[in-house]
Structures are given as structure tokens and as C-alpha cells.
């Protein structure tokens, strides 16, 4: 017979306390850092991306793992993702990841000058491991990735784009009024008035002032939505000080007063919900809201007649209304704390490999494992078939977790791919067709004066800490002029206020950098 001693209440409480304390300490302890990699033969480099994802919570874990395994087999690199939340929170999360000493991060997206000092120069890495990446972009693309000394700080994400801004019109309403897509400013206004006559609810929607300027400012100014050289002092000035900008403001104010501009056009509303209301007569925003969002809404709702189409070129009193999108110096960058920078470039280069003729690797990173998530129907003819419908929920599909070549390059090449539908028909996705056709069509818009200057805005901000406030002030006041909160007769005061807010300093700093590239 054995004697079993039961723990006393004190012993029990002590035990519970120790376990709880241990759990707290374990939970608070930083994860074991990955050993610094030297690319040793036996070590599998594990890299982490910081990217956004159409599925904020990621896709199906099993499908994601299958893609990870395929990439490992193909490249010898183990890939992972820190999914960033959508919207402005992405920047917040990214900054925290970058500042974190414990969370791994090997690749992220942003305007490279903002991160100079915490990212690795990429020249040597590209030269050794990135031949296909180098070949996949134009000289202009690469120029935008380099500082004035010629050091490359990333590989291109976005560059000069011709496809991002077009005015879209509700085609069934136009047809009802017996009108075609207009090609002049007056024609555009007439088209809208005709729509409004038949449909009182019809509105013009602008996705904020920036997109409105991309779409329309060129109709009233020489340079459109662009900084410009003022011949009076040969200095670079903000777009708002161009001759003609006041006329544009007055016109926009007229639209506002007439009730044409949707009242939330400057308030970041839910544009998807707005599209569903079928009240938008003219859309002056970012193209993909039409090519992706609207297209999905139209399909889901089964609309046969209701649709939108865009004007290739609108000409106003001062010329072409649209300004091409210089796309900034948005780049994929490697943080200095990365343990495996070579592996990052090696993997990215694999996606670029064999492009633009063969985009299989890009599609693996985007769609998943060939034969399981998708398959080629006609590889030569660039026809593929997805195994899951576009409407498949995130939990059931691979969701682009390891896609690190969006924007220019492979994504642009992949837009040539058409999809075979379940009924056997072959369809060219509206979004991809749009990009493929227009991404390098620049003649329909004005070219920004400084489209080829990779401004180092961090340096500008260091020299002029009030620069973000200055930009914000101009934005805020301009919107007041449009909405009538500030009458246009106060324009002179506004210019004085701009001067007080640091216009001269702004102009000097931007001109200084502009002159480095345009002596």
C-alpha cells in the first residue's frame, strides 16, 4: 500500500503561481532570432516579406504551404509573409516591423528615399543574382531607383504609367441621351448634363483632389498635375501656382455649386459601396476601381446594360486634360537587418525569369501551384485556367502571399494572359486588358515636368521640417476653394499664406534636386 501525499493549499498556489509566472515570461520573451546567414551550403535561407494582400488574413494555409514548397524546390529559398493591413495602417505596421529588433523582415515596398539608411544598396546583389530583374526594366525605371551618386536602392514597383487615369462614363446613360463618349471638356460637361437630365441622382465622383487633378487639371494649365519651372525665377513651383490653376478651381467650384460633384468626393468614402448605388455618371478616380471593383459588382449583380467606358483623351481650353502618372520612386527594398539579401534577389529573379515570354513563375507567385491551383490551357497563346472561381473565399485559396513583383515588369507582362472560363470561352480580364493596352500609352496625357527625377523627400523634409505641413496646407485650402468654404477672391491671401508656410524653401529644395538631373 502506498501513501499518496496531497499537495497543501499553499503548495498548490505556489505551483500555480510558478506556472503562471513562467508562462508570462515565455510569452514576453523575444523569439529566437534566426542565425545570421552566410549562404552556407547546408542552410536553407528563410525570408520574410512585408506586403499587403487581397486577403488581409492570408489564404488557405495548406495551399500557401504547397506554393511555399514549390518555390523552395525551384529556388532553394523558404518564403514567408508578414501580411500588412490594408490602407494607412500598412505604413504603420511596416514601420513597426522595420523598427522591430525581433521580427524578421527581408523585403518591403515604399518610396526608396524615405528609407535610405535602413536599406541595403542593391547594385551588387542585382549584378550577381538579378540578371533577369535588371533586364526586365527600362533605363528610366532604373534611373528612378538610383540616388544621384548612382547607387540602386531597390527594384521597381511603380514607374511612369499611362493607364491609371481616365474619365469613365456611364455608357447606358450616354446611349439613352444619344451621346458618344466625349473627347472635349465641353463634350464632357454636356454628356454629364444630359445624364443628369434623365437621372437626377447622377453625380461626378472624384477620388479626392489628387485624382481629380490627374484627370482634369491639364485642361486648364500647361503642365497639368505637375511641378513646373516658373520662367519668372527659373525655380520649380507647386502645380497650384501654375497659370490656369485658379480657372480650374473656379470650374471645380462651379461643379460643386451645381451639385455635380459628389459631396463625399474629398472625404474618403466607401467607393465600392458608392459604385453599387449606380448613381455615378462620371468617374474621375483611380482606374482599378472600375476595372476591378465595378467589373466585379457588374458580374455579381448580373448587370447587362449598366456599364462604364472611358475617354481616351479629353481636350480642354488649355489642351489635354489628363496627366500621366510618374508613379514616384516606389520600390521593393531590402532592409539592412535582412539575414538573407541574396536569397531575396534570387527569389525575385526567379519570378522575372524567362519573362516576358513565359510568365509561369509570376503566375505561381500569384495564383499558386500549376496543375493544382491553375493550369496553362495554351501556354504559347497565353491562355490559362484557374481551378477556383474569382469569387472563391480567402480561406479556400492561395492568396498571392509570395508575390513580390507587382506593378511594372512581370505583372505588366502577365496582363497578356487570358482566362478560359468554365463554359470554355476565353476571356481577357478587364483589368489586365486595360493595363496591357495602356500602361505605356503616354500620348493621351501630359508628361509631368519632373517625371524622371527621383526626389529624396526625406532630405527635403530634414532641411524643411514643415514640408509635410506645407503640402497638407495646400491640399486643405484647395479643397476649401472647390467646395466654396473659401471664396476664390481670397486667392491672393492664399498665396501669401503659402509664402508664410515656406513656399520659398520648398521651391529651393525641390529645384536643387531637380537641377541635379536637369542642369
Amino acid at each position, binding site marked *: 500500500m502506498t501513501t499518496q501525499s496531497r499537495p497543501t493549499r499553499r503548495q498548490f498556489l505556489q505551483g500555480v503561481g510558478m506556472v503562471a509566472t513562467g508562462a508570462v515570461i515565455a510569452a514576453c520573451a523575444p523569439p529566437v532570432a534566426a542565425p545570421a546567414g552566410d549562404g552556407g551550403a547546408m542552410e536553407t535561407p528563410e525570408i520574410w516579406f512585408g506586403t499587403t494582400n487581397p486577403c488581409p488574413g492570408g489564404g488557405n494555409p495548406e495551399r500557401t504551404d504547397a506554393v511555399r514548397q514549390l518555390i523552395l524546390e525551384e529556388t532553394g529559398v523558404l518564403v514567408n509573409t508578414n501580411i500588412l493591413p490594408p490602407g494607412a495602417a500598412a505604413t504603420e505596421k511596416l*514601420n513597426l516591423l*522595420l523598427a522591430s529588433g525581433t521580427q524578421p523582415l527581408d523585403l518591403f515596398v515604399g518610396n526608396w528615399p524615405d528609407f535610405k*539608411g535602413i536599406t541595403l544598396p542593391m547594385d551588387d546583389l542585382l549584378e550577381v543574382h538579378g540578371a533577369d530583374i535588371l533586364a526586365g526594366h527600362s533605363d528610366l525605371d532604373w534611373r528612378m531607383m538610383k540616388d544621384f551618386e548612382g547607387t540602386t536602392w531597390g527594384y521597381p514597383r511603380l514607374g511612369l504609367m499611362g493607364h491609371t487615369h481616365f474619365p469613365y462614363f456611364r455608357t447606358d446613360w450616354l446611349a439613352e441621351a444619344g451621346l458618344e463618349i466625349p473627347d472635349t471638356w465641353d463634350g464632357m460637361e454636356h454628356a454629364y448634363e444630359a445624364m443628369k437630365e434623365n437621372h437626377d441622382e447622377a453625380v461626378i465622383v472624384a477620388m479626392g483632389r489628387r485624382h481629380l487633378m490627374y484627370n482634369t487639371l491639364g485642361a486648364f494649365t500647361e503642365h497639368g498635375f505637375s511641378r513646373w519651372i516658373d520662367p519668372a525665377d527659373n525655380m520649380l513651383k507647386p502645380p497650384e501656382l501654375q497659370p490656369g490653376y485658379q480657372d480650374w478651381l473656379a470650374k471645380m467650384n462651379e461643379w460643386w455649386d451645381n451639385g455635380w460633384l459628389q459631396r463625399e468626393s*474629398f472625404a474618403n468614402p*466607401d467607393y465600392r459601396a458608392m459604385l453599387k448605388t449606380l448613381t455615378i455618371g462620371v468617374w474621375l478616380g483611380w482606374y482599378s476601381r472600375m476595372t476591378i471593383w465595378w467589373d466585379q459588382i457588374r458580374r455579381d449583380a448580373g448587370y447587362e446594360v449598366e456599364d462604364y467606358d472611358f475617354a481616351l483623351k479629353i481636350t480642354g481650353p488649355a489642351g489635354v486634360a489628363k496627366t500621366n502618372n510618374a508613379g514616384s520612386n516606389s520600390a521593393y527594398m531590402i532592409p539592412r*537587418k535582412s539575414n538573407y539579401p541574396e536569397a531575396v534577389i534570387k527569389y525575385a529573379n526567379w519570378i522575372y525569369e524567362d519573362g516576358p515570354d513565359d510568365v509561369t513563375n509570376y503566375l505561381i507567385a500569384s495564383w499558386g501551384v500549376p496543375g493544382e491551383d491553375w493550369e496553362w490551357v495554351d501556354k504559347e497563346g497565353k491562355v490559362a485556367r484557374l481551378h477556383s472561381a474569382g469569387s472563391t473565399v480567402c480561406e479556400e485559396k492561395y492568396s498571392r502571399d509570395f508575390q513580390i513583383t507587382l506593378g511594372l515588369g512581370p505583372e505588366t507582362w502577365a496582363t497578356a494572359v487570358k482566362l478560359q472560363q468554365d463554359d470554355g470561352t476565353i476571356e481577357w480580364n478587364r483589368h489586365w486588358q486595360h493595363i496591357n493596352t495602356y500602361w505605356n500609352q503616354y500620348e493621351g496625357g501630359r508628361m509631368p515636368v519632373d517625371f524622371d527625377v527621383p526626389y529624396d523627400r526625406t532630405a527635403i523634409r530634414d532641411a524643411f521640417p514643415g514640408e509635410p*505641413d506645407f503640402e497638407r496646407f495646400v491640399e*486643405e485650402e484647395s479643397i476649401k476653394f472647390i*467646395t466654396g468654404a473659401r471664396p476664390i477672391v481670397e486667392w491672393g491671401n492664399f498665396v501669401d499664406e503659402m509664402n508664410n508656410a515656406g513656399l520659398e524653401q520648398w521651391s529651393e529644395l525641390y529645384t536643387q534636386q531637380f537641377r541635379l538631373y536637369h542642369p
Partner: protein
Amino acid sequence: MQQPLGEQIRVRLEQDAPVFAEKKGFQEAWRQIKRDRFLYALAALPLLYFVVFRYLPMVGLIIAFQDYDPFLGIGAMFSLDNFVGFKHFTNFFDSIFFWNVVRNTVLISFYKLLFGFPLPIILALLINEVRITVFQRTVQTISYLPHFFSMVVAAGIVRAMLTPQGGLLNQAIVAFGGEAQAFLTDPNLFRSILVTMDIWQQAGWNSIIFLAAMATINPEMYEAAAMDGANRFQRMWYVTLPSISFAIVIILIFRIGGMLDAGFEQILLLYSPSVYSVSDIIDTYVYRAGLIGRQYSFGAAVGLFKSVLALILMYMANKVAQYLGQEGLW
């Protein structure tokens, strides 16, 4: 009748005080800690929380006086090379938005205090007067409910209500022959919307503490007042309100101390360029400059400025309360 716990503790501490004064020994202190170990254990985790999450991070305030690069690690925080003195404070004071964000912060907080502070008291007084328990509890539940909505959900509800594209309020306006309005982009209405939303979300919840204070009022006082011929309103005015005045003052001091917290999440979720001029507060400015613009040192400097102001406000409120014969916080 058993004394309340707080009173018991106070009496116990008073009893112990002379013992401490006489012995002053570590052993005696240790003896008492051992004696009250469960009370100390109870306080340990909250204390740890405050030390770890409230006091230790204050070390980080040093970056307000530096050009700190967080990507260089915590070690860089203690390097004298980065020291820039009051540069970031000066930059903030020189900002064209300085007076605007300070004015907005104070005004929005003031409006919230002005309209949002008395309402929970009134609500508590009214609920306290309700004699039908079912009705009383239903009102309480309904008024507490919005407090439990996350700010994102609450802001979503407000947006959905107010949007000119099919919003509930605008639908009603249009149904009555009016024209749909963009309430959230109207600078004249935006602050009112913030205050109204704040009252809707918090009035019920904030009334709890006043209801609790009312529960401690001796019923005999009401009986005596009734015998003296006081009607219900007079009882409310002369018995209930004076009896909960201590709670009102303490909550008011807290509210004034937190006056510069004008509702960061709420504003961030609802504002837009059209209403920046009336809605941009110190916290949204810090968020943009610090977390979005990566000007961490600048953001820390602005945040520190705000905290110092808040401390001064709280100190002043406490002094005023004491001057008016109330107990105050310290």
C-alpha cells in the same frame, strides 16, 4: 453595520502608522507585508502593468530631444550624438498647424466636456428615479450598449447613417422633400457630430459611477426630506446631487486632466481633408508625423508637449476643486 472595504483599509493603515513610526524597521515592514501578502499579491500584477507599460516607456521620451532613428536600435537612444535639444518642440511651435491643432484639441474636448459631462449625471438621476425595475434595467442596457461597440464599428454606423448616398438620415430628409447633405464633410457640423457621437456612445456607461454613488446615499435622508415636504425634484436637487458631489468633482478632475485626449480614434476614422481645419487634433498630428511620416522624434516631442499640458490642466483642476471645498485627488 460592516464598514466599506476602503474604510477598513484606511482604518487599518491609521492603526499601523504609529507602529511604523516607532519601529521603522525593515523587519516590521516585512512582517506586515507577509501579514497582508494576499493584498500585496493582488496589487502586484496591476503595479507590474503600470511599471512595464506606463512608466518604463517614459524612458523613450528622451527621443523627443534627439534626432532618433528607430532602425538603429534602442542603443542609439542613449547616444549623445543625436541630441538636438528643443529642436522638435520649436519645429512644432513654428508649424503652420500648431495653433490649429491646439485649438481643435481644446475646443473638441471642451465641447465634449460641456455637453458630455452633465448628461451622464442627468441620466443617472433619471434612472435613479425610475421605480419600475424592468424599465430601469432596459433603459440602462440600451444606454450602455453603444459603449461596447468598437470605435471602428461605431464610426461605421455613423458613416452609414450620414452618407449622402443612401444614408438613413439623408433618406429621411429626401423623403420629406429636402436635399441630401454631406454632413461629415461640412466643417460647420463636424464637431457637433463628434460630440453627439461621443454622448451616444459614452453617456450610458459614464452614468454607472454616478448610479453607484447614489446607491450609497442613506435612505433615511430621503425619508427625512419627504417628511419635511420635499417633492421628488427637490429631493433630487437637495439630497441626491449634494450626496454625489464628491464623485462629480473627482470625475470632473479626471475629465479635465484628460481634456487633451479629444478622441483620436474617433476623429481618425471620421475626418477627411474637407474638415481637417476643424478636426485635426494633437493626436492625429502626432500619428501622421510619427507613425506615418516616420518622424518619431518629432512625434514624441509633440506627444510630450501634450502630456505636460494635460498635467498642468489636472493640477489646476485639482486646486480649483480644493479651493471650492472639495477633497480633490491629492
